């Protein structure tokens, strides 16, 4: 793709972004972390457009991963952690799908996954690590030999070898790079030139975006380029790495977005209740995904009072005193 720094070519609806950039069977990197900055608008749109056989790759994700797995959009995952903090120590639809054998899982650690995305971002074929010697994270294979070395799946989960630079026989773990088809990122700000600014912790979003072939960014606000260029030290991604920008205020709901809103304890507690039961979960999808045509309809359904309850304090970045029980 030719580099573009004109947002006109990129600003689009979630519907168009998914239709153009997400295909059945794609390897998709999920940005954010557990209860923070999950790309929920895109996750719901992927479910609406009934994408199938997706291969999700992530370090630690919560709500977006669980919703996609629960909706049957996913056949494979490579991850370190599937949880929503205290709201679901293990993501519930994920747990059920793994226990039922509906998805194939390859476990790594967070450091492993971080390094694999970093390797992809740097265009390296693999990357060394010293984490996990003799653990089952390295010894147990989630993906069987029938899929190893085919398509996007590397021939080995990891290789343990001797450090070639050491006179002693020091072991080192080699991990295959990750180069996803698509990275899904939710940011606070995108400039009119497409520059991306993530506020608060960036987690691994920058490496994930750089490792991917296509990047969809949803954002709270589109702002004049000059505003982001006044303080470029704070910016996260250059415009020409971004393929689609979707303006979506509260786009990470029910997960948090620093300086904009907190996670929504009422929604996450409600989700925990319904996710445990197959029928209740189907009803949830019908109401909250298929039953709302777009993000505006979704926010109307959440309602003003719940959105105001989680509105962040502009100094602290979260909603102080929020009832999180």
């Amino acid at each position, binding site marked *: 793709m030719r580099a573009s720094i004109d947002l006109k070519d990129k600003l689009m609806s979630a519907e168009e972004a998914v239709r153009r950039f997400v295909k059945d069977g794609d390897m998709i990197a999920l940005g954010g972390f557990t209860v923070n900055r999950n790309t929920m608008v895109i996750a719901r749109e992927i479910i609406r457009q009934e994408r199938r056989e997706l291969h999700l790759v992530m370090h630690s994700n919560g709500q977006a991963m669980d919703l996609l797995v629960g909706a049957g959009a996913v056949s494979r995952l490579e991850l370190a952690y599937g949880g929503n903090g205290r709201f679901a120590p293990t993501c519930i639809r994920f747990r059920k799908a793994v226990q039922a054998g509906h998805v194939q899982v390859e476990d790594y650690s967070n450091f492993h996954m971080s390094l694999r995305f970093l390797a992809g971002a740097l265009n390296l074929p693999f990357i060394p690590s010293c984490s996990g010697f003799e653990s089952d994270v390295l010894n147990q294979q989630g993906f069987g030999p029938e899929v190893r070395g085919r398509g996007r799946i590397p021939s080995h989960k990891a290789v343990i070898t001797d450090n070639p630079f050491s006179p002693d026989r020091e072991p080192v773990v080699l991990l295959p790079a990750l180069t996803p088809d698509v990275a899904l990122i939710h940011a606070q700000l995108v400039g009119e030139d497409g520059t991306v600014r993530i506020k608060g912790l960036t987690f691994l979003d920058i490496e994930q975006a750089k490792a991917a072939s296509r990047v969809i960014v949803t954002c709270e606000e589109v702002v004049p380029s000059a505003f982001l260029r006044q303080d470029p030290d704070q910016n996260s991604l250059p415009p020409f790495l971004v393929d689609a920008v979707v303006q979506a205020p509260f786009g990470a709901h029910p997960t948090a977005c620093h300086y904009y809103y907190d*996670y929504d304890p009422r929604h996450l507690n409600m989700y925990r209740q319904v996710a445990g039961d197959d029928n209740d979960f189907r009803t949830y999808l019908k109401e909250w995904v298929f039953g709302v045509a777009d993000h505006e309809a979704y926010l109307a359904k959440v309602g003003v009072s719940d959105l105001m309850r989680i509105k962040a304090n502009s100094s602290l970045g979260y909603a102080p005193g929020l009832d999180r029980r």
Partner: protein
Amino acid sequence: MAHAYTSKEMMALTAGRLVNNGDVLFAGTGLSMLAAAVAKRIHAPQAVVFFETGGIDPALKELPLAVGDPRVMAGTCMNSGLIDAFSLLGHRRLRTIAFLGAAQIDPFGNINSTCLGDYHRPKVRFPGSGGGCDAASLAFGVILFMQQEKKRFVEKVDYLTSVGWLRGGDSRWEAGYKRGGPMAVVTNLGVMKFDEQSRRMYLAACYPGVTPAQVAENTGFALDLTRAEESLPPSEEELTILRRDVDPQRLILGPAAE
């Protein structure tokens, strides 16, 4: 006079007491947040807490419920990302102490936070390693939280997520690890530590009112009980700080004592 308190309160305070002023703490979710927050407020104000998500030394005015909670980004010395956090975890200049919890533990402090039963078709699936495997591999030391039950303290874990003292003795070093290893296991009944030579778990302390026999009954492998001392009960100051300042909504502490 004795104060009523819960085992969760005792666990948080006991782990907090193991923190030294100036330690660099790698905290996870749940009890480890309480332990770090309480230690900072009582005896280790210079201790620095950081999270694998990249938040370094947050103010922790409110308790984070996940390492991705926006509360780990507030009042920090800096906000970064996972690559930066892992550069600190294993940094040779830092004595990083990591807190970890798990579903199963074996006599050498190897833990499982991935699944029960066969990995390919598990009976119960848990969240997975997260940064646990990395903390167990790279930190200077590890403090573990466990519920003391026979089904959790087992001869062999169903899945070895995070390596402890491996098979005991020098096996951890032989496997390629340069430092680290579990220092203590804090449970609802007491504290276990690991023998300097054999690296096998022994009972180091029982909470007030708990007997070594009770601990043994709730452990699925033989445990040396001969070195057990009795822990000090929580002080009024510790309980007040924990309940009033650290977790006033009892988000992690759960129901109060009767």
